[in-house]
């Protein structure tokens, strides 16, 4: 598991989601990437019922890269508590649906083709909220390096070479506070949640 950067790719006027994925697939293939299957990251959000006191939110996420793990992030209002558990956590959540109820119409997922190019892993995800297309998220992982500060410049060069000027010169907000720490799978989950939250807030397509 190496440092991963999640990046939103803008959808230009009158270009659909599949067309955008197609364009990026062509670009990355031209650079020498080979497709290695598909990927899927999904997120469902639960909120506590009123009787439990002040409201807490649990985001439950799955990542096909770690298929045996269920990630969850609990927001208490003052604290954010991440948790990595095995598959049984999903069953636990269904048992608790009297206390934690799933928010209506909020199931978000990002899925699409997965590419390998050198030591990079590139995933082109179409984001949908309850089947409605919302935008494109590009995930790039540089597998050999585990400290964001060491390889950010290198990854920026890769991202900009492949996505163009839409890539900012500064790391994603979530990473900025953790540049010197060892990168772990939960960090990827945090980045997805950050992006998913923005998609949920914006009506229509995010461009």
């Amino acid at each position, binding site marked *: 598991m190496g440092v991963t950067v999640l990046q939103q790719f803008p959808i230009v006027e009158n270009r659909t989601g599949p067309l955008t994925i197609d364009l990026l697939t062509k670009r990355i293939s031209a650079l020498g990437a080979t497709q290695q299957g598909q990927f899927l990251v999904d997120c469902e959000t639960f909120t506590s019922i009123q009787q439990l006191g002040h409201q807490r939110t649990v985001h439950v996420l799955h990542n096909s890269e770690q298929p045996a793990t269920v990630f969850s992030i609990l927001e208490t209002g003052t604290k954010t508590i991440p948790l990595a558990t095995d598959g049984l956590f999903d069953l636990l959540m269904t048992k608790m649906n009297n206390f934690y109820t799933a928010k209506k119409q909020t199931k978000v997922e990002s899925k699409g083709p997965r590419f390998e190019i050198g030591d990079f892993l590139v995933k082109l995800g179409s984001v949908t909220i309850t089947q409605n297309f919302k935008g494109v998220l590009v995930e790039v992982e540089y597998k*050999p390096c585990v400290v964001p500060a060491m390889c950010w410049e290198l990854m920026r060069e890769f991202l900009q070479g492949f996505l163009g000027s839409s890539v900012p010169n500064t790391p994603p907000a979530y990473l900025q506070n953790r540049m010197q720490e060892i990168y772990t799978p939960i960090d990827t989950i945090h980045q997805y949640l950050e992006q998913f939250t923005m998609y949920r807030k914006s009506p229509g397509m995010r461009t």
Partner: protein
Amino acid sequence: MERDLEQLHSALNYLKVLRSNVGQVFETVSNGLGANHGEEGKENKFMIELQELLTTVNNNLRDIETTVSNLTTPTGPFNLGNTSYLSQETTQERQALYSQLVNSYRWTDKVRDYSSLAGNILATNSVSKTYKTLSTTKRRKTQTSNHNVPPEVIESLITSIDRLFPDVTITASRPFAPNPIIQASLGRVLKSIIAFKGLMIEWVVVKAHSESNDLWTESRYRVLRKVTENCHAAMCHFHSPTMPELAVRSFMHWFHSYNTLFSSPCKRCGNYLHSNLPPTWRDLRTLEPYHEDCK
């Protein structure tokens, strides 16, 4: 000489056949009449069988005599030198020494042949891992052995390297005492597993921290496989049979420059990536980073 040996071998072979056939004759005689000779005229059958066996023995004997007569008699007694005293050895377990001695003599003979061949080949394309002067006429002052050094010397070398660089942590293990295998972690960037042979670096493999510590599987990352390759080149470059400690120290100094493997751009083209790899080469003198194609 070669023909003589061959004849000697065939003579010995015939002797072996003769012995086994004579053995069979005695076996048949000692078994005497048996159920396999049937009831009717069993004596006759037995006699015929014996006769056949004796004819074979006769033929074998003739074979031996002809091959032996073809052998050339050695001129005078063999000079065995000091080894002849081995025959006076009385303790049982030392009597086998002679054949061992012959074997090791043959072995050294072969080593001499091969090394002179190798010497000729290496003289035409000299690598710095071998002595440049192969002439025997002017011997340099005898080299101290680099292969066979007391473990304390290697130990102190390793500790001194460990102290030299604060961001290099070294752990040593000795699966093949006294030659240690050290694991040098370069910050959080990478680690290398280095096998020593005495005071010389024998093998280097570079891996990610998450990968296993064994010496024989290469890294699953392309960039680290490239660095391993370059380490092998540098290991040969820095190698110096006359100053092994300096060689190890210079190698480690060079290796240390990989602490910026992911974070420094190429000195020549100014980019971080070239064919999706960071600058994997470090200049041997200036330690500046270069891409494989930019050096």
